């Protein structure tokens, strides 16, 4: 653990990974993530892919809720835009005759841009309302986005309730058609997103977001344009969720509107609360907990009750209760999330044995 950071030059001070521990941590993580597809079973890859997609989406929510202080209960809508957007863009690009090997480079940013644009639109009420009003406004937006996707009149494009068959990404001729291959793509993008967003908060924009979170009126007096930065925050946040959605479309062979309903929005927010809002590691810890909790529950229950149908039918309700209890428990007992617990543990570790706690 670090007890002090000696920085001998400005360059050293300006690095994202400003000390050896962080560098070691990130490189070690990258190595582990890279080694995973070589050793892990299909099952682990499956869980890793789903968690990776969730992490990207929760990082998006973190930008808005954790750093800018705007509550959203509708981010699943942006994930939906990303998933449908990327699929439709692939279709359009194929129709225009763009070679398959190059489509990803247009479709992926295109889907993110589309999500960002919708994000700005949904963010408009944030200029006039805050807190619960905004929560309900975003919630409404989520319902409306799903409704539009399911609408019969738009079904020729969106597939309506039956959903759309997605494409396998093809990057310069490498077709990602197995989960193990898609894992590589997801892992790379998780690293990129987390580091880029971390970097964002060392810039003028990121500092403006934090100022708005602390007190929006004071920020405005300091010369930060609320109009510009709140919408920018919505755009960046939605773009991350759009990226997660696009990866979901790449991962699954088909997307259905029911994948993007309120439940997903709540999961995203829950992961953030559990992990810790406004912290880089928050989304990662949070996603690990809310993905692993059901798996652990499954293991415990099959150890206790075996594979009986009675056990199977009580598991989902228990899972729901645990999920809710995690949100409530963290808010009541550790509002700063797991990151804070980890920080405290690290601090105790670094002082040990000279001081405790």
């Amino acid at each position, binding site marked *: 653990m670090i007890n002090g950071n000696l920085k001998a030059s400005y360059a050293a001070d300006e690095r994202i990974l400003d000390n050896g521990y962080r560098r070691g941590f990130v490189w070690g993580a990258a190595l582990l993530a890279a080694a995973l597809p070589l050793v892990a079973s299909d099952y682990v890859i499956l869980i890793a892919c789903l968690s990776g997609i969730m992490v990207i989406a929760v990082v998006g929510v973190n930008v808005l809720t954790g750093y800018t202080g705007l*509550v959203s*209960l509708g981010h699943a809508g942006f994930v939906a835009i990303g998933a449908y957007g990327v699929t439709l863009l692939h279709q359009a690009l194929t129709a225009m005759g763009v070679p398959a090997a190059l489509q990803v480079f247009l479709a992926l940013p295109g889907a993110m841009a589309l999500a960002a644009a919708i994000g700005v639109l949904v963010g*408009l*009420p944030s200029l*006039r*309302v805050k*807190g*619960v*009003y905004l*929560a*309900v*406004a975003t*919630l*409404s*937006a989520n*319902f*409306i986005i799903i*409704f539009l996707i*399911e*609408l*019969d009149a738009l079904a020729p494009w969106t597939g309506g309730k039956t959903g759309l068959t997605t494409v396998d990404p093809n990057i310069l001729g490498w077709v990602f058609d197995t989960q193990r291959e898609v894992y590589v793509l997801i892992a790379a993008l998780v690293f990129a997103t987390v580091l880029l967003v971390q970097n964002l908060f060392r810039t003028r924009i990121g500092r403006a977001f934090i100022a708005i979170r602390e*007190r929006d*009126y*004071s920020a405005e007096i300091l010369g930060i344009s609320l109009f510009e930065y709140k919408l920018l925050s919505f755009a960046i946040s939605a773009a991350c969720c759009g990226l997660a959605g696009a990866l979901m479309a790449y991962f699954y062979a088909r997307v259905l509107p029911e994948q993007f309903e*309120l439940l997903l929005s*709540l999961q995203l*927010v*829950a992961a953030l*609360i559990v992990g810790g809002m406004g912290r880089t590691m928050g989304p990662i810890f949070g996603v690990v907990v809310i993905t692993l909790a059901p798996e652990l529950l499954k293991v415990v229950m099959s150890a206790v009750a075996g594979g009986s149908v009675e056990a199977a039918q*009580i598991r*989902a*309700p*228990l*899972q*729901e*209760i645990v*999920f*809710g*209890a*995690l*949100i*409530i428990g963290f*808010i*009541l007992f550790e*509002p700063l999330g797991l990151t804070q617990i980890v920080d405290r543990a690290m601090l105790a570790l670094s002082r040990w044995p000279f001081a405790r706690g």
Partner: protein
Amino acid sequence: MGQVLQFAINGLMSGAIYALIALGFVAIYKATRVVNFAQGYIIMMGAYFYYTFAVLLPAAPWFPDLIFAPEWLVAAKAEAAMFSPAAAWLTWLESLPRVLFGLIGAVVGASLLAMAIERVLMRPLLGQSNFSMIMITVGLISVLSGLKSVFWTGDAASVPHLAPNPAIRFELFGSPIFIFGANLVSMCIAIALFGAIVLWLRRSAAGVAMRATSEDQSTAYSMGISVPRVFATAWVLAAATGAVAGAILAARDGVSPSLGLFGFSVLAIVLMGGLDSFAGVFIAAMAIGVLEALVQWQLGGDWVEVTPYIAVLLVILIRPHGLMGQKEVERI
């Protein structure tokens, strides 16, 4: 014209139920400044309590028979034609003890639940940020919905109506109008309850305490008002009215977990009307009820579900604090 009226009447009947649910949101908000996202799930629990006490328990072999069936009633029922108004009245009379037992069970059950929630989850957060309280209620959504599935199946079972349910048919402007008797009575119950509670909050000591608390918590404290008690009252009030609304809805549409999601559309209505204005939410509830019925008529069922959400977005953009809500004054 007749058709418009038909749907307008249907709309007013559901609007009244929206208003009764909305009352719970406003009461909790006024007293505690918390918006209860889990209100719909408390209503759902109320409906399941009603189902338990009115249907499941009376059906259990060890439970005393709750059917009111003196000889004259049985004889009259055998004579009455099926679906005749007389049969509807007799059926209701027969199940009246069950209905009352169910209603009491629902109100008491939901109130106890609300008291537990308030005491265990909300009170420790007294004075904490609004965000935490909102998120607790969001967590509560999962907990309640999970608890429901542990104790009850996802059954869409039928439960007895609160009121006799004869079909009422008449002609208006040359087109036939159909109304269900029970819905008409439910509308009256909902409006009467709404009015009575608003009046009570305005006139009684408890109501004054609640308004004082909503103005300024610490001042209310120092004036000798027991703020925790005000909080508990508000939660119980919300749960009790919610349980009645849940029972009405369960009798109308069948008991099902979808009642939980229903709460979100009412929340949209509440924001439209203004979080702290009883009059505002009443108007909004009635308006949305009618609007939904007309949308149902012209555009079909799919559009109905998003009607309140589209409406609330439009209203928020124009009047950020709803039709009649007070603008919050923030100190910097």
